[in-house]
């Protein structure tokens, strides 16, 4: 909390709302004004916090998410009622599925108008009930401070998530005498039904450590919960102490350094062969803040059939939702991992473990046989997106933040970037929201103006939220966008090629319309277009030197390129399709 406030001051609801946000230490609000929220925008002129005016309410929500992903602090967005509230539905659902701490404030029509189908009225709390961790409709001005206090408490504790606070116009109206009250910011919340687990079940930790010591083929299956708990350091100690190979899911990239010898990389539908197969053949999966998502397990019945399961999650409902754990531990991942480390140290460190040498040898054998790979582009062909990402990766500082959209470019970015720092990878994993990257990158860059922030985007995604580059230009939030233009909804095209007999239905977007360079320039950005491999490095270097405005680099990429490996949807992870060059029937096949 930034300050205390013991003696009451007379404020109206709007002033109280802004004051409450300041009391919560909010530095930046992403928002868009409109009728019902107008009274709240008046005191913003005098507020200490920064307001970033987006160009579409969806952008406000994703920017708040990007800010939260990068900082670990709750992201805040504020919009008006009705259509604005429905426009933040997507970011709310996105934040709910990826457990992103976020507070969303929506304006609502005046109390007397609620339920009358008034102008710009919608049932915001009803619509968002199943996509928020909690929501509330505040009906009295004097309840605003407690609502905000509780919203931030709920959003940031236990399993984080989005909380929406719906505020009718009249209780924030400076002309309404009933909107005035003596403001005191509460120090305690009043939530008798809310008590997230903060301790550790020592008996369960004992049993988990026992399984860890006996396992011959263990894998630490690390999910986004490790990042949410700020647990990267504890994870490194646990993995090294236990000699435990680590996979990091799409939500956990960066939680464990990719360059570490124990790191196997990303598992799942587009995970690498070793990560996927290590899980399949393990005898112990230590699921740490991960939730056995269908994109990770493939066909659940065929997933890691011989593995015992230790499942650590702060949300007990994740235990047994998909796979029954042998040891379930409810708790914050960092706290639990620290307890495990203490227990392992007491047990005598690595010498207390079963021999992992054969397992480690098998893993490195797979890594040698089935590395991530692609064929370089032929002369005259457009670029290989993998090549672009490798060059971009090598040209950027290690602490560069990468925000991604959803589709092929997201998978390639996750595969080919080298994540050695936590909180450098921001993407939409659960909801899979196209258009996520640009507003999310803006949120991250607003939090860390001195860090380099690249949005990796596809042409389909760019057309959904590209207008937020106007926000970035005007607000001096100079993000960079690597637009991998392959003229298609690439992932849809890949599925149509592989599973729909190459019948390409409604999937072609075209390289030239819109002209992305002109569009970028019209939004106050610098625009580049790269078509040849030898232009890649020099253009990236130019882009990296521009710090006074956003940059868009359009890389013309080959339409036919596919993401491999791939586990077909609904298939078993044993049926993983590696790159064609690595298949048994390939001329240059590895086996």
């Amino acid at each position, binding site marked *: 909390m930034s300050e205390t406030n013991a003696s009451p001051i007379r404020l109206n609801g709007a002033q109280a709302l802004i004051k409450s946000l300041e009391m919560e230490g909010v530095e930046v609000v992403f928002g868009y004004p409109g009728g019902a929220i107008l009274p709240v925008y008046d005191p913003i002129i005098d507020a200490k916090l920064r307001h970033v005016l987006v160009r579409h309410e969806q952008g406000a929500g994703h920017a708040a998410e990007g800010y939260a992903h990068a900082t670990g602090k709750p992201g805040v967005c504020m919009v008006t009622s009705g259509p604005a509230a429905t426009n933040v539905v997507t970011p709310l659902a996105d934040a709910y599925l990826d457990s992103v701490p976020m507070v969303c404030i929506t304006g609502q029509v005046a109390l007397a108008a609620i339920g009358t189908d008034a102008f710009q009225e919608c049932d915001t709390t009803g619509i968002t*009930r*199943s996509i928020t961790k909690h929501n509330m409709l505040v009906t009295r001005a004097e309840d605003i401070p407690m609502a905000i206090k509780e919203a931030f408490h*709920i959003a940031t504790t236990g399993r984080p998530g989005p909380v929406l606070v719906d505020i009718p116009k009249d209780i924030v109206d400076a002309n309404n005498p009933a909107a005035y009250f003596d403001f005191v910011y509460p120090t305690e919340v009043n939530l*008798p*039904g*809310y008590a997230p687990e903060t301790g550790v079940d020592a008996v369960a930790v004992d049993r988990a450590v026992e399984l860890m010591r006996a396992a011959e083929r263990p894998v630490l299956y690390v999910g986004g919960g490790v990042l949410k708990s700020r647990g990267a350091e504890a994870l490194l100690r646990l993995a090294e102490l236990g000699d435990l190979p680590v996979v990091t899911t799409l939500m956990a990239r960066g939680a464990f350094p990719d360059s570490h010898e124990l790191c196997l990389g990303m598992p799942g539908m587009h995970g690498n062969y070793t990560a996927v197969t290590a899980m399949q053949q393990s005898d112990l999966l230590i699921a740490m803040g991960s939730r056995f998502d269908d994109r990770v397990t493939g066909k659940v019945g065929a997933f890691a059939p011989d593995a015992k399961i230790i499942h650590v999650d702060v*949300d007990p*409902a994740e235990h*047994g939702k998909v796979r029954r754990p042998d040891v379930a531990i409810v708790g914050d991942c960092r706290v639990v991992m620290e307890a495990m480390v203490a227990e392992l140290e007491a047990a005598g460190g690595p010498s207390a473990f079963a021999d992992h040498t054969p397992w480690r040898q098998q893993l490195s054998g797979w890594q040698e046989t089935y590395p991530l790979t692609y064929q370089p582009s032929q002369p005259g062909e457009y670029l290989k997106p993998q090549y672009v990402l490798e060059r971009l990766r090598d040209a950027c500082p290690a602490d560069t933040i990468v925000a991604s959209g959803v589709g092929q470019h997201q998978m390639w970015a996750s595969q080919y970037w080298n994540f050695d720092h936590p909180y450098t990878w921001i993407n939409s994993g659960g909801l899979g929201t196209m258009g996520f990257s640009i507003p999310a990158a803006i949120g991250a860059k607003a939090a860390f103006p001195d860090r380099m922030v690249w949005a990796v985007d596809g042409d389909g995604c760019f057309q959904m939220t590209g207008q937020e580059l106007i926000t970035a230009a005007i607000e001096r939030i100079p993000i960079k966008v690597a637009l991998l233009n392959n003229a298609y909804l690439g992932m849809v095209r890949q599925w149509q090629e592989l599973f729909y007999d190459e019948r390409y239905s409604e999937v072609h977007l075209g390289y030239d319309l819109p002209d992305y360079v002109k569009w970028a320039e019209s939004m106050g950005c610098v625009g580049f277009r790269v078509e040849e491999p030898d232009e890649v490095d020099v253009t990236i270097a130019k882009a990296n030197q521009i710090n006074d405005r956003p940059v868009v680099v359009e890389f013309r990429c080959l339409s036919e390129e596919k993401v491999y490996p791939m586990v077909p949807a609904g298939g078993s992870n044993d049926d993983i399709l590696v790159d064609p060059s690595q298949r048994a029937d390939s001329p240059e096949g590895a086996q």
Partner: protein
Amino acid sequence: MVNPSNAPHRTIVVLVENKAGVLARVADLFARRGYNIVSLAVAPTDDDRFSRLTIVVDIESTPLDQIVKQLFKLINVVEIAELAPGDSVERELLLVTVEVSPENRSQIVEIVDIFEGKILAVAPGSLTVSLDGRPDKLDDFEALLGDYTIVDLQRSGRIALPKVGRQVPRLRAAV
């Protein structure tokens, strides 16, 4: 809702904060996650901060454990306990209006008497009856009335309390 008679079910008692929209939150959760409610009764408790929901849940497709954990994630849910049939007193209320003729009137009145029901209203061609008791008693009564023409029938859904002196397993509690 499913037919109460053929789904395996359990009874849970859910203490919730008495706040606007709480019932909708519970109902939404069941709908959103594909859980089935057999019956649901809600009423304030002796403490006006809280209401108590008695929910009979179908556990055929989803284990009770998962239903309870998801329910407890609702911020306004304070406590969840299970009422096993042997450890609890369950009651339900049934109201029924049935067509009567001079020929069958006495038969129907006799059935109502046997079940210790009450005749609430009498009209030339129909009777309205109330009956309270254990849910299986109401099932039997309803089955016997099947031979006659039912105009309207409404059951309240069961409410339940632990038997005096019995420990009720608290499945989840915030305090």
